[in-house]
């Protein structure tokens, strides 16, 4: 329990630190939100008026204390552009990101684990090379390339799936594959390398000596021992994906957290950007915590440290 409390405290501190960092960074980088909003129809008087109304004329410390006070009460400010509470905007956007992340995760994990296992079972044969090549492609090709290729092949050539997200389940398939692609690659590679390691262990020889089929030895014995690091990676991947897939969401027009963060950056919408970054940090911190928990439960030797 003490361990748990310590970790929670750690998360809180990290979040505070991130709030502070992003707050300062946003005010240090060039780009004044008032000028972006006024864009071409700009005048010094208008900028000044708007700066005051955004509260950006106050001193930095004053601004930060105001922000912190409101945040502790659960109020993360109003978005400059969307004129809505940041919490509410995130609450609206998160379901889209969540759906996308879950689908991507299901694709990445099933594809990754299966291809990892197949690779080991057909070690150094054609299927192994094929899947190894695929997983290498997975981790090395950037998401936007995968996305464009999928759009070209699946939408344009084959006409099987819609080009962009339109609210329906099928229109999320392409973005999910694009997003899950590189995770699939790394899961496949870790599964394979962990399994290979296990295959050299004496207990596998014992299993084989007992007359078990090779596949059974892999699935029942080796996999069980190999899966632990894979699960850790998966938990981290999921929290990463849940915290927003900026590129995938903007290519496919998914109105999720990543998309919201991107708009916020482009328009220098400070409250919104602070909110989305904080939310992502929170998800990742919680994801890490859960990964550790799962790990220690599956492998009691490691314990909770």
């Amino acid at each position: 329990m003490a361990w748990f409390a310590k970790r929670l405290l750690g998360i809180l501190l990290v979040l505070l630190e991130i709030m502070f960092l992003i707050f300062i960074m946003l005010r240090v980088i060039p780009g004044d939100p008032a000028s972006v909003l006024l864009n071409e129809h700009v005048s010094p008087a208008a900028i000044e008026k708007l700066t005051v109304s955004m509260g950006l004329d106050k001193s930095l410390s004053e601004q930060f204390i105001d922000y912190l006070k409101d945040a502790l009460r659960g109020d993360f400010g109003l978005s400059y552009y969307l004129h809505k509470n940041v919490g509410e905007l995130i609450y609206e956007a998160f379901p889209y990101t969540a759906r996308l992340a879950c689908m991507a995760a299901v694709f990445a994990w099933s594809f990754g684990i299966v291809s990892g296992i197949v690779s080991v079972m057909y070690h150094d044969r054609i299927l192994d090379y094929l899947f190894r090549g695929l997983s290498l492609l997975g981790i090395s090709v950037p998401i936007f390339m995968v996305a464009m290729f999928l759009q070209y092949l699946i939408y344009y050539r084959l006409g099987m799936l819609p080009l962009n997200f339109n609210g329906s389940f099928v229109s999320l398939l392409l973005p999910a594959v694009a997003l899950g692609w590189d995770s699939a690659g790394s899961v496949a590679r870790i599964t394979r390398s962990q399994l290979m390691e296990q295959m050299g262990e004496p207990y596998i020889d014992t299993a084989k000596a007992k007359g078990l089929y090779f596949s059974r030895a892999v699935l029942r014995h080796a996999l069980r021992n190999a899966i632990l690091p894979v699960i850790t990676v998966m938990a981290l991947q999921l929290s990463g994906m849940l915290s927003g897939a900026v590129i995938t969401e903007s290519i496919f027009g998914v109105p999720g957290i990543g998309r919201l963060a991107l708009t916020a950056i482009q328009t220098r919408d400070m409250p919104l950007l602070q909110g989305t970054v904080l939310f992502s940090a929170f998800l990742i911190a919680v994801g890490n915590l859960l990964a550790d928990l799962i790990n220690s439960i599956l492998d009691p030797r490691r314990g909770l440290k």
Partner: protein
Amino acid sequence: MRKRCLAFILVTLLLTMGIAGCGSSSEDEKNSANDGNTTVTADEDKTLRLAIGSDIVSMDAHRTTNDYLVPMNVFDTLFSIIKDENGNTEIVNSLVDSYEISEDGLKYDFRLKDGIVFSDGTPLKASDVKFTFERILTLPESAQTDFVIAIDGARELLDGKAEELTGVTVADDLNFTITLAEPFAGFLSQLAAPSTVIYSEKLVTEAGDDFGNVPEKTIGTGPYIVKEWNRGSGLVFEVNPLYWEQEPSAKRVEVSVMESQAMNMAFQKGDIDIIDCLRLDSAVVDSTYKTEAYKDRLVSVDRVGLNYFTLNEKIEPLNNVKVRHAIQLAIDRESILNSIYGGDGKLEDGIYPSGCIGYSDENQGWLKYDPEAAKDLLKKAGYADGFDMEIAVDSSANGAVNSTVEIIAQNLSDIAIKADIKTMDHASWLDLRNSGDMPSFMALWLLDINDPDNIVYTFFGSRENTVIRSNNYPDSEVISRVAAARAIVDEEERMEEYAALEKKLVEEDAVWVPMFSLKHLYVKGERVESFTPHWAGWSDVYFTGVTLK
């Protein structure tokens, strides 16, 4: 075993972090999908599908200077602008039924058309006009104050010294009078710009912060209503059943946000009906659309807008007029126009682009590419060995701007000027430009209203304006002439003054390098019978300009 169970529970917990959200949203999705289906089947062949490159940031005309899709199609202005075959624009009544202007050009008596209602049935009243203009001046983030600043009392209201806009008096539900602080011939044009669309006092007040953000609360008198706005993914419009004019051809309009390549694929597949060539790579436009196969489907409109390359007179040695003249002569505008824009445009030598009222043939044709003469000028100015300068590029600008600036830098290096291209993101770029310290940049001014004042006043109308556009033009006499020109009542005299100012600013003082005005090309799909783009060639279009087969 128990531990394993616990682990399983935890994994499930992690997954449910996401699925918790999925539950609620999939219900939404079912509803909207159902909604969508019923309408689509009814009006399948009357649906117009368009694509835009990035999502709009607001539906409220007062809070944007870029995104006029909603203001143009969901709201109405007092006047509108039409363009004839010869490219001349004309101001015609829209919400206004009739009007009279006093002889001194100060008083405008208007009468609204009778019986116009907002799409929820709320009647349009003269007091709504007053409310709208007051909102433009009092909203802290208002980006449109320039459009009503000519009205008497506007300055006071803007500065917080008055409670109401005294220059607008409402006689009854239909009649109102606007008094200007000084005569301004471009005023009616301003009332035709999407920046001054008329809002309902009652509806805007009731909606509060939701106005411009929530579709159901963003209600206008225009031909369409916003049905959905899915941030980042697009908008859906439907015909306004209470619209006061002829019902448009497209009954439903779906606008999707797409990347350039995706847009092209979707158009090729017939999933969007009109494609905007400015959003495509020019190589794709050349190889695919400027071909025999698409000859009859290309729609072209002259953009009433000037591409200019500006020089900051605060920065040494750009403060030397000879140096600026040399730069004007050194840039091979024709090659840029041909190689980057496929020749789809026209060289411009002044301030007012072709199609703009006040465009003067006499001020054209004087600027020729002449690197030798440029070198001589540099020598005379004492910079025979050249100098270093910086060109700032906004990374959100399209690729053509980047290529143009690269050629400019190349041209400048031919006369020994070493130009360093600095790319920065949009916000930083604006910040630097507004500070008055940006050494030079290439940009486009697209006219909001068809009046020379719209461009010349923006850049040279006051000391502040010259700073904020980073040109820092120093001649205060010329600056006050620009400001005074808007008040000249006699139209001929006003145009003469504008032509004289243009000559002084560009030809004599070399305040910038006028580059060119461009054509805006669109390709219409097979379902589109006819398509009329915006008169000034904006990317935002009036849906009423589209007739479906």
